[in-house]
């Protein structure tokens, strides 16, 4: 069991019209590991995540979760797989028609794992795990600041005790202090629920903090991957340019004159 990776991607391709976004992704995420995919904007990070989640269907290649091929899976099977998955969306993606507690307990209610009566208590408990007060539970998402929405999103992602949690740019749009708070929370909650984590980000401070292993995505391929300690000695010019944020180097941004 331990040598079956939690997530395994092999030769995953995806193109939108003529634009090739994923050009043969190979990536393994081991059980309990935290892998961070770094890369510039438009390199296919989000598409990678959405392909694993089944929100997009790759053109070719295989994606396995617990050794089970999830591409082309029926709706019922997909729902079963998604029950062990949690996801923190970039903008939080909280349901703005529902109060905070119902957002947090949404997955549990959908899976009928608790009654509406118990859901409120569970939600308060999960909110406490991300350092939020019980009073927040009855507010609407629109009444919260961006950082608080991220935290509620995190509480929602962990509410159903997922085996895998995905983080989509968890620190984007936050001030550096709140970003660090979120990073700490991510490390803490993934450890607490014992989940495997796969994140995508372009924030190196965040990547260094939450990753066991880092993979760099460039032009639709993983061009380098290794333990987080090796990131400064990767010997890869692309990685060096990215982590130091230099405009000069092998990565040329498509800047229109």
């Amino acid at each position, binding site marked *: 069991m331990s040598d079956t990776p939690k997530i395994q991607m092999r030769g995953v391709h995806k193109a939108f019209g003529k634009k090739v976004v994923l050009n043969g992704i190979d990536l393994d995420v081991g059980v309990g590991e935290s892998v961070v995919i770094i890369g510039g904007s438009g390199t296919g990070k989000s598409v990678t995540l959405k392909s694993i989640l089944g929100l997009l269907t790759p053109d070719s290649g295989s994606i396995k979760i617990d050794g089970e091929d999830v591409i082309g899976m029926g709706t019922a099977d997909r729902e079963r797989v*998604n029950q062990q998955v*949690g996801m923190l969306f970039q903008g939080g*993606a*909280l349901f703005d028609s529902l109060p905070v507690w119902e957002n947090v307990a949404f997955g549990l209610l*959908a899976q009928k794992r608790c009654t509406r009566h118990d859901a409120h208590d569970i939600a308060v408990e999960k909110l406490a795990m991300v350092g939020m007060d019980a009073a927040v539970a009855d507010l609407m998402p629109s009444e919260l600041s961006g950082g608080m929405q991220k935290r509620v999103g995190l509480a929602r992602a962990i509410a159903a005790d997922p085996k895998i949690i995905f983080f989509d740019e968890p620190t984007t749009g936050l001030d550096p202090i709140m970003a660090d708070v979120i990073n700490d929370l991510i490390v803490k909650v993934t450890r607490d629920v014992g989940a495997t984590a796969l994140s995508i980000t372009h924030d190196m401070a965040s990547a260094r903090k939450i990753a066991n292993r880092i993979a760099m995505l460039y032009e639709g391929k993983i061009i380098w991957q290794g333990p987080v300690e090796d990131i400064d000695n990767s010997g890869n010019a692309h990685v060096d340019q990215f982590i130091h944020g230099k405009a000069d180097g092998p990565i040329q941004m498509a800047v229109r004159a």
Partner: protein
Amino acid sequence: MNPLQAIGRVFLAFLATTGRLMTFTGLGLSHAVRPPFYPRIVLRQMIDIGYYSLPVVGLTAVFAGMVLALQSYTGFSRFSAEGAIANVVVLSITRELGPVLAGLMVAGRIGASLAAEIGTMRVTEQIDALTTLSTNPMKYLVAPRIVAGLAMFPILVLIADIIGVFGGYLVAVYKLGFNPSNYLQNTWDFLTAEDVNSGLVKAAVFGFIVTLMGCYHGYNSKGGAQGVGRATTNAVVSACILILCSDYILTEMFFTK
């Protein structure tokens, strides 16, 4: 460019859209009849679509009835057929103006709000979030709205019929000096159950069209605020056009039967 090529491209795009719409319709309907059901959401949509549309539908109906009485008086008095006014008002309202005017008004109100709401959920990734929380968005978002539309439109139109006939009565009695009891007697004598029923069948079809168009355009919107704006426009315009087209087809079906 070859003109045939341009025609072919438009034709293919039309077929693709029709196919997508048919698939969407089939999925929406099939989810509406398979569990799990969301009675709370259906109820909330019924209140939104039915109850909160009452003022706008009522106002439309009362003025339509009043104008109808006034206009037919002008026309009919030229050949001394004023007695037919009650008859004309009640038949026009129940068979035609009740369902069509209510349908068009509610298309503006509900079609737009559904498209904007679901479209915003699409661009803020809330629909993706539903999927990751083991909830099928077609079942959770689309099916309840279609069911609510199908159920509430006939009720709305029945109320519009009554209010419309009352509007005609007001003008006939208080402005044109008709005898109240004669007018009501004339209204009632010529009315058959089929007149009302055909209008209610139309109403159910229009309710289906309005909610389907709102959901379809919202669900497939992309590209931020502009995309949601476009989806809203398309939802209202397509719903109105489809209402008028299907109105003719339905009328012909009832008429030639």
